[in-house]
């Protein structure tokens, strides 16, 4: 039963990581730019939840559920801002310029949050109730179910958007070959802006969901960007399903190792795994020569 319990916890954590990694890989595919601020954007989503909590109407049955659309919208706006400030002016420059500009954006987010909220860990309100459900001896936090459900919905929504709609076709065309897409009349800049908004909204949703179960601090993004990166590296650079699978894998690993040994050991092993994978198979465990991209 303990194993099953860990599995559910790992799945919930993995679902949140999957949103982070998915946002990261969408932006990577569309712009060939590594968004180093992705971890800090997760933190920003959590902090938005913290900030909005006092304003929730308490006469509704599930006030926390209101947070999701509000945070998604605000974060999408932040994504547009990020693209306008840190990506669009640098798109003709070497990739390292965008990498550094997103490091800068992350620093600003991190320290802005530190000024506004202080360094103490904060919790965002739960989406459903704050309680637990007893499923025949298996005790599951309602928030875990909320994380899994919201992540599944958003990922399915992304799949539908990219796979089934005209906008999705244009987004994919931009990711595959921006020059070609532009030649075919796709408004590439608008597509890139939408991708940034999506990627940032996903990061924000993950932050909101995680900040209830695991708390949030201004510096929480540092480890998250590396975890998103590891997930993407395991899944093969540029692969959307790979990123989701990689995120689930590292979350299960993290929860498993943490329960037997400790969280620092789990984290250290994750980073060590990253280094080994990078050196042995820089294209990712399941990826093909994606290394030449970017």
């Amino acid at each position, binding site marked *: 039963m303990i194993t099953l319990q860990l599995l559910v916890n790992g799945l919930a954590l993995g679902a949140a990581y999957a949103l982070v990694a998915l946002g990261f890989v969408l932006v990577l595919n569309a712009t060939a730019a590594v968004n180093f601020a992705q971890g800090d954007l997760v933190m920003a989503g959590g902090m938005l939840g913290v900030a909005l909590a006092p304003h929730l109407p308490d006469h509704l049955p599930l006030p926390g559920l209101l947070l999701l659309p509000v945070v998604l919208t605000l974060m999408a706006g932040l994504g547009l801002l990020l693209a306008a*400030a840190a990506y669009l*002016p640098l798109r003709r420059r070497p990739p390292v310029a965008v990498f550094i500009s997103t490091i800068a954006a992350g620093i600003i987010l991190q320290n802005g949050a*530190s000024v506004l909220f202080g360094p103490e860990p904060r919790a965002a309100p739960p989406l459903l109730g704050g309680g637990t459900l007893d499923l025949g001896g298996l005790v599951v936090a309602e928030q875990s179910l909320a994380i899994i459900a919201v992540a599944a919905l958003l990922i399915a929504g992304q799949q539908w958007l990219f796979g089934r709609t005209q906008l999705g076709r244009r987004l994919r065309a931009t990711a595959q070959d921006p020059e070609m897409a532009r030649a075919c009349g796709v408004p590439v800049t608008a597509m890139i802006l939408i991708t940034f908004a999506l990627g940032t909204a996903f990061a924000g949703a993950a932050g909101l969901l995680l900040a209830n179960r695991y708390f949030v601090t201004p510096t929480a993004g540092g480890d998250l960007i590396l975890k998103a990166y590891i997930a993407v590296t395991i899944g093969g650079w540029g692969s959307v399903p790979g990123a989701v699978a990689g995120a689930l894998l590292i979350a299960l690993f993290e929860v498993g190792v943490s329960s037997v040994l400790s969280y*620092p050991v789990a984290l250290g092993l994750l*980073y060590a795994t*990253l*280094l080994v994978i*990078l050196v042995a198979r820089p294209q990712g465990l399941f990826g093909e020569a994606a290394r030449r991209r970017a």
Partner: protein
Amino acid sequence: MMLAVLVAYALLYASPYGLRVLTVAGVYALAAVGFQIVFGLGGALSLAHGAFFGLGAYATGILGSQWGWGFAATFPVSLLVPLLLALLVGLPVLRLESHYFALATLGIAQVVHLLAVNSPGLTGGANGLPGVPGIVLFGWAVPRGLPLAAVVWGFVALGGLLAWSLARGRWGRALTLVRDDPLAAGTLGLDVGGLRLAAFALSAVYAGAAGALAVHTQRVVSPEVLEFPVMVSVLTIAVVGGRGRVAGAILGAVLLLHLPEWFRFLERSYLIVYGVALLATIVLAPHGLTGLLDRLFPARPAPLPMPAAPPDIAVPNGPLLRVEGLTKGFGGVRAVDGVSLTLEAGTITGLIGPNGSGKTTLVNLISGLETPDGGRVLMGGADLAGRRPDRIARAGIARTFQAVSLPDAASVLAAVAAARLERDGSIAQAEAHALWALERLGAADLAAKPCAGLPAALRRRVELARALARQPAVLLLDEPAAGLTDGEKAELAGHLRAIAATGTALLVVEHDMGFLLPLAGHVLCLDQGRPLYAGPPEGVRSDPAVVAAYLGEGA
């Protein structure tokens, strides 16, 4: 001049607090000078420099406070520990490209941080270790205040001078080329991996020195020295000051360490200022403060050297180059499939074939940019197949690229002189030889021009001069006539004949039959990686297989 300003500042604002800020600025200046070597010159965004800084700090902190070692013993160890880590992780990690490298080095930094926080027995854990002794130089215990600031800035001056002379010399030029164009650097005889590793290791030594001095200034060591803000500060200083410039590191450090004093209302979160400064610089002034100063006070162009012919390299007897059964597949497709050819001294061989027939792959295999699956590349009795590009280049093979690659920021003379960095003793000598090569192609008047903005035909000319400056025994040209006018083609043909007449063997990949057939003494035609025709140029047009595969396609 900058030094005089600093000294005047130190003496005028000699409040203990002001001197402390200045001392810390010196510590970061030293770390940033080192960072300029790997990031500015080498182009590798290392995020492990916080870890190197922290390792230097912990080495001094542990040995000084726990073991009672003095500065004379702890300081060298603080240089050595980051150096060893850099050498250990550098070899595998430096092979990674751009952001893979950046995030891998960040992973290394996180592991070091985790270890420091979770080994309380050794490091004091999250609390750190107090009681780190001060600096003792030749029996003199350096007191805080002006003397400590002077000693720290003395180290900055030493380190800065060393880095400055390295950056200006052959090594710095070579590193810059490795940054701008690693492929071309390899084919010009430069050991790309070795240069990157040396830059990474040297910059780790600087970071370690800075970390040691930081701990002597603070008298305690705690995990803060390993946290990301240290790395952020060093990166911001380097970018804001001006990438790759020693003066930029010093200017950036003094400015950015004093900025928080002017933005006191932000309290602990002075890093916001760093973030904004970093973002603004990257977007608005990519060359940083020193770049802006350069634009205000442009340097006078250096006088051109006297051209001098580089010494000939020994040319073996018999055929210069023999390729036997060379084979290369990409994921099941045989791009080159059992190709053999012989290049004799003083001859021009044409390599033709439809698009995708494996011409460029063959040139890449010979010059070492791709590793063959099978076959031999023989030169003077040695098999070069599968060797590193720089080894092959040193054996006497030079090449040009289908898409001309020249470093935009460099002058034409500097770009061509890059070909001589591996052989000549000094930059001056390399430039003299480069001017000779430019003169030989009638392009000496371009020498002082920047590579950026040169028209396509002249870019090709400069690239040819760069290959020629190596005095190659074998010269591989990938579509040298692409995009040239008829007049320019005729001129190029004359130059190629003249080069062959000196004994160099030329292999020319070309689509333009009108240009190639009168020029070449021998023609090899590839189709889907296989030789289709090998013989005199006159036979090409009448060979039915060639006509079917190639000429029929509208040449």
